[in-house]
């Protein structure tokens, strides 16, 4: 058990087993983080290959077919398998600590969510070695993907179906956790903004992933079992895929950016050393963005031919989102305004984020103007827009938060000096790469092309853009080096690493014990850590209960087994259209494994276990020395 883990050195096998079976939100957070970094690196490498190909006109560094595969896998991986898990990593690691909980509401499901995501991701990546990756873009429009030869699209459909189930499960878990597991006194309007944005983002997952699931399911039966949902020659409708995809797809971009907003709303007040400006308007704006996010999907389909009425309505709805987004931007600026600012690495990322994200929002509103979008659609302008919001908004949030939360997650620190260098290399590289792409788009360069003719005025900008991409890659390598160096840094072993922490997670003495709080905290106001510090409370926490037995969940290998079952079944489904004899048995065996694991889980009662008071005291003494957590 993890209570023993800290004291005795365990063998490799035992550690591995611990991670395969863990239901601890902190460990799952770390696993999400590393899995996310892995896929971020893979997708980044794919991007680099594409930019090398586009560095000079008429290049033949990679073939057109491979380019399409790289393009598709880059987009799909970055959104579903890198950004999502990285943000889930922070949600897992931090949200329970912010609300004063000892774990999430459903620890077992939390682990299941991770393994489904991870095996779905592995499945999709196996396509590279098994006859070709998906090649119809991350949007995989049916009119293209239904006719894609080979199994690439099938890998996309099945892989996303599995990892999407994991995402949906984790989303529901966070909703229930935040609603039911808050410590006494942690009212809704005292919740930190990262918790709020996690709640809203999880709610968006709850409502947005089912349309994707339906779309993927239609695609699955169309491609693998000969149905005709999207085949217009058979009475289907290929546009339905686009609607289903974007009814999911637009909320998806907000699913990713809202937690990023939340992370910056944590970072900025701490380093401006001022209370977050306009807390309640921030909460309101988050909810409004979440709601409006569902009303604008057709802005991706202005050129489909829905007609002027539809285009006008969706144009207005889209522009309306800029209002709550603007509220947030002003609130951040007014938080910084007049603060006593400490420019640490997380703050540097926050300062870089604001103008970059605003630029992305402005191009968004430009594209929302339907007539203008007829010019901009499917050009490099779109590429510039979404990279400004995604890299400028989400990736900066992830990098900044790695520095910010590293002490809590690992009891180690990332180097500030190297961090500053990383920031500048990455940030300059980012703007070099994408700023000029706006103009490439305006000059008519279409997106998703594997090469271009010389002397159309695109050569120089493409060259510079590729240089920028190389700088971004260097930045990422520096970040990885920083992570590796952090292993050698001395443990932090204290509270409130940054000295100006405001929310509850900073009140916890590091390293965080596996039960998080030896006594459930009592939250007496907004920014509880800051409040207690103001009142001279050395422990930075008031307790809601006396020291007592702590109830914790048991570890389980079942989530991994369930996910492996689906992973196996997916291979059967994939090869089914080839008419191989083993496809149906493999599907049956795979689903059988999953169902058996589910039955085992249902029949076997698992009440968790109690950590008794003496054990709690012993653990505290081992972690913090004599006298324990005092």
């Amino acid at each position, binding site marked *: 058990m993890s209570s023993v883990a800290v004291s005795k050195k365990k063998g490799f096998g035992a550690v591995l087993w611990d991670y395969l079976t863990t239901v601890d939100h902190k460990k799952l957070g770390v696993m999400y983080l590393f899995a996310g970094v892995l896929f971020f690196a893979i997708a980044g490498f794919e991007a680099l290959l594409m930019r090398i190909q586009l560095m000079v006109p008429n290049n033949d560094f990679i073939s057109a077919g491979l380019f399409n595969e790289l393009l598709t896998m880059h987009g799909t991986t970055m959104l579903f398998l890198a950004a999502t898990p990285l943000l889930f990593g922070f949600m897992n690691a931090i949200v329970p600590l912010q609300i004063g909980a000892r774990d999430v509401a459903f620890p077992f499901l939390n682990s299941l969510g991770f393994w489904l995501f991870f095996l779905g991701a592995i499945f999709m990546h196996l396509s590279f070695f098994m006859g070709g990756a998906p090649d119809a873009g991350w949007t995989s429009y049916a009119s293209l993907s239904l006719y894609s030869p080979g199994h690439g699209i099938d890998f996309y459909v099945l892989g996303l179906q599995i990892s999407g189930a994991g995402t949906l499960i984790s989303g529901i878990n966070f909703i229930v956790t935040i609603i*039911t597991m808050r410590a006494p006194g942690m009212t809704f309007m005292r919740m930190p903004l990262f918790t709020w944005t996690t709640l809203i983002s999880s709610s968006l997952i709850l409502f947005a992933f089912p349309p994707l699931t339906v779309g993927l399911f239609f695609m699955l039966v169309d491609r693998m079992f000969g149905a005709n949902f999207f085949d217009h020659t058979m009475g289907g409708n290929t546009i339905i895929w686009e609607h289903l995809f974007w009814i999911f797809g637009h909320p998806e971009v907000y699913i990713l950016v809202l937690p990023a907003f939340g992370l910056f709303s944590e970072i900025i007040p701490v380093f401006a050393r001022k209370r977050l400006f306009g807390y309640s308007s921030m909460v309101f704006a988050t909810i409004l963005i979440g709601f409006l996010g569902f009303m604008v999907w057709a802005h991706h389909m202005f050129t489909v031919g829905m007609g002027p009425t539809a285009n006008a309505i969706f144009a207005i709805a889209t522009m309306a989102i800029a209002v709550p987004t603007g509220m947030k931007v002003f609130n951040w600026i007014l938080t910084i305004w007049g603060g006593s600012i400490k420019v640490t690495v997380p703050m540097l990322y926050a300062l870089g984020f604001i103008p970059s994200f605003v630029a992305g929002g402005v191009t968004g509103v430009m594209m929302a103007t339907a007539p203008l979008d007829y010019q901009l659609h499917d050009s490099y302008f779109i590429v510039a827009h979404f990279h400004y919001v995604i890299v400028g908004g989400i990736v900066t949030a992830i990098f900044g938060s790695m520095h910010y939360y590293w002490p809590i997650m690992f009891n180690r620190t990332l180097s500030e000096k190297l961090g500053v260098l990383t920031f500048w290399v990455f940030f300059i590289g980012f703007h070099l790469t994408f700023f000029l792409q706006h103009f490439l788009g305006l000059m008519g360069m279409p997106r998703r092309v594997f090469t271009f003719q010389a002397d159309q005025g695109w050569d120089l900008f493409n060259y510079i853009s590729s240089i920028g991409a190389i700088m971004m890659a260097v930045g990422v390598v520096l970040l990885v080096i920083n992570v590796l160096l952090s292993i050698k840094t001395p443990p932090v072993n204290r509270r409130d690493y940054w000295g100006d922490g405001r929310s509850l997670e900073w009140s916890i003495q590091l390293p965080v014990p596996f039960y998080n709080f030896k006594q459930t905290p009592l939250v007496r106001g907004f920014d509880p850590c800051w409040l207690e510090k103001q009142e001279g409370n050395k422990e930075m926490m008031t307790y809601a209960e006396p020291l007592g037995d702590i109830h914790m969940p048991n570890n389980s290998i079942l989530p991994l087994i369930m996910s492996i079952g689906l992973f196996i079944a997916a291979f059967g489904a994939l090869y089914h259209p080839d008419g191989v004899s083993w496809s149906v048995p493999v599907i049956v065996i795979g689903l059988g494994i999953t169902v058996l694991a589910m039955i085992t889980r249902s029949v076997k009662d698992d009440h*968790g276990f109690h950590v008794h008071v003496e054990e709690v005291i012993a653990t505290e003494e081992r972690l913090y020395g004599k006298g324990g957590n005092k």
Partner: protein
Amino acid sequence: MGHHTEVQAKTKAQYEYDRHHNAVHMKKQVVNFAIMIFLTFLAFAVVVADFSPYLIKPFILLLAGIQVVLQLYSFMHMDDKNGHHIGVISTYVWSGAMIIFPVFLAFVTVVWW
């Protein structure tokens, strides 16, 4: 795991109360389940009986509406007014409705044609 698992002892009265409560609850679930099967049967019946599409379509939509309500209120416990967090659950259900209704409206008015 080498740790204690939790064993809860119930008093006799608590046991009797739970038993009764569960029995009532079970009965309600079975009755509702039967109703839902019956509604599904009706849906198939109107199609097999070859009624006019102008009858079949609204009829099936009506049945679907009833099934949704039954599903939410009976099987998903929204009728349990004293349940934990019933307010939050209703909020979620209504938010879902508020999100899906404009989407539906957009489809039938401006997008589809």
